[in-house]
């Protein structure tokens, strides 16, 4: 019952959010600022996460597939298979899902605390009394900025995952960078790109809208603002994993 009423509240909240902005010039000014905060400010963490994850995935996959085993002789395993595995998992899972789980922590907590703080300090009420649709004014620029910047970050992450793999190849003797790239190219399908982009837009919407929703309904004081940030991150992570499963099932079921 609680979940249903929460979903109902979210739908009503989104009904207010998805309104035409009061003043386009002000809206775009705020949106550009949000694009900077969501996008540019997150580039460093995305670079680090993606490069290291790409390197680790390559080393671990190579270790599993090229280690001597009784089940499968290693000499029969073409090395480009490692590239195929790393390339596909980067595109389908590591770039969109892992990146967004990290961004949920960074961006989601930030948005929830920012709006929560505005709520408890009556700034949201001040917008309302002025005749401004506060839900739309504080949330819509964040959602639009997220929908523009998060897919860009995911595309960057995808390249960096492969780059991390290439760096790992240079550090090992069992696999060359050419093997890795050849394998990634061999199994590439445009459908994978479609899945990645679908995930990135849906996850971007979940991160920005759920965190705004959590912040907007904060009541109390500083303690509750902190709780709102934690709750927002938890909910976003659950919903990202849930939608990850649904998208995989919809696009990739064989």
């Amino acid at each position, binding site marked *: 019952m609680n979940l249903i009423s929460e979903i109902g509240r979210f739908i009503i909240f989104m009904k207010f959010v998805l309104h035409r902005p009061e003043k386009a010039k002000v809206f775009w000014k705020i949106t550009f600022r949000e694009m900077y905060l969501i996008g540019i400010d997150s580039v460093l963490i995305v670079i680090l996460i993606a490069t290291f994850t790409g390197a680790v995935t390559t080393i671990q996959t190579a270790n599993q597939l090229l280690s001597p085993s009784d089940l499968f002789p290693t000499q029969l395993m073409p090395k480009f298979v490692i590239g195929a595995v790393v390339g596909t998992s980067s595109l389908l899972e590591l770039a969109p899902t892992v990146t967004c789980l990290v961004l949920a922590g960074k961006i989601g907590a930030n948005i929830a605390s920012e709006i929560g703080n505005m709520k408890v*300090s009556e700034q949201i009420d*001040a917008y309302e009394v*002025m005749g401004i649709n506060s839900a739309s004014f504080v949330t819509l620029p964040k959602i639009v900025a997220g929908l523009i910047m998060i897919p860009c970050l995911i595309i960057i992450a995808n390249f960096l995952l492969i780059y991390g793999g290439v760096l790992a190849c240079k550090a090992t003797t069992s696999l060359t960078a050419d093997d890795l790239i050849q394998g990634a190219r061999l199994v590439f399908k445009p459908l994978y790109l479609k899945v990645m982009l679908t995930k990135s837009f849906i996850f971007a919407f979940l991160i920005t809208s759920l965190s705004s929703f959590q912040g907007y309904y904060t009541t109390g004081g500083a303690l509750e603002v902190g709780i709102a940030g934690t709750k927002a991150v938890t909910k976003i992570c659950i919903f990202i994993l849930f939608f990850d499963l649904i998208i995989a099932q919809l696009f990739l079921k064989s």
Partner: protein
Amino acid sequence: MIKIEHLDKWFDDRQILFDINTEFKPGVANLVIGASGSGKSVLIKCMVGLLEPTNGKILYGDQDFISLEYQHKQNLRREIGMLFQNNALFDSLTVEENIDFPLRMFSKMSPEERKERVNFCLEKVQLTNANKKYPAEISGGMKKRVGIARAIALEIKYLFCDEPNSGLDPLTSRVIDQLLVDITKEFNITTIINSHDMKTVMDIGEHIIFIYKGQNWWEGSKNEITEGRKSNKELNEFFLASF
């Protein structure tokens, strides 16, 4: 003028306001007084639409605020200014940007005209040389002045003040009180001040409503309060407890 008719407010199964009826006239300092938890903040929040009353009417002129459609309600709100208890200044904006905010959103003024208006409002609240400061860098009294300046930036008809003296020293409190009276008279605004500071009441209260346990318990002017205290035990207790 604002008229309230048979206003009730319930929170779940708890009634906070009971059949409130009253009238607030323009150009007069209207004070809503009462102990903490008596329902005066709820009354103000109902009047500006931050809370939805359970029953009753709130008439701004001849328009019933409660039954107005969303967009009409938003338009009417542009004639309302509010000074919040915690000031509710926008942290990320400077003093002048805070005052400019409603102008940028709703007026068709040029940037030069807006700047002129901002300076005019700052002069009205006797606050100069703080234009470029952020709310975190100014004192409580200055924040109140910025709040008032922002509230009057647009040519408002109604001004609501929720505990304008809270957290201020007695001297600054008197200055803010006088400022509110001056602005009310000069612009002929319908001003409603929510307070439990008896000094404020005796200084500026031209029309006073005493809310007791969610009811309009007593109504009159500061000159009538002495008489009111004789016949009204609760008002007398509130009055004595304030000193």
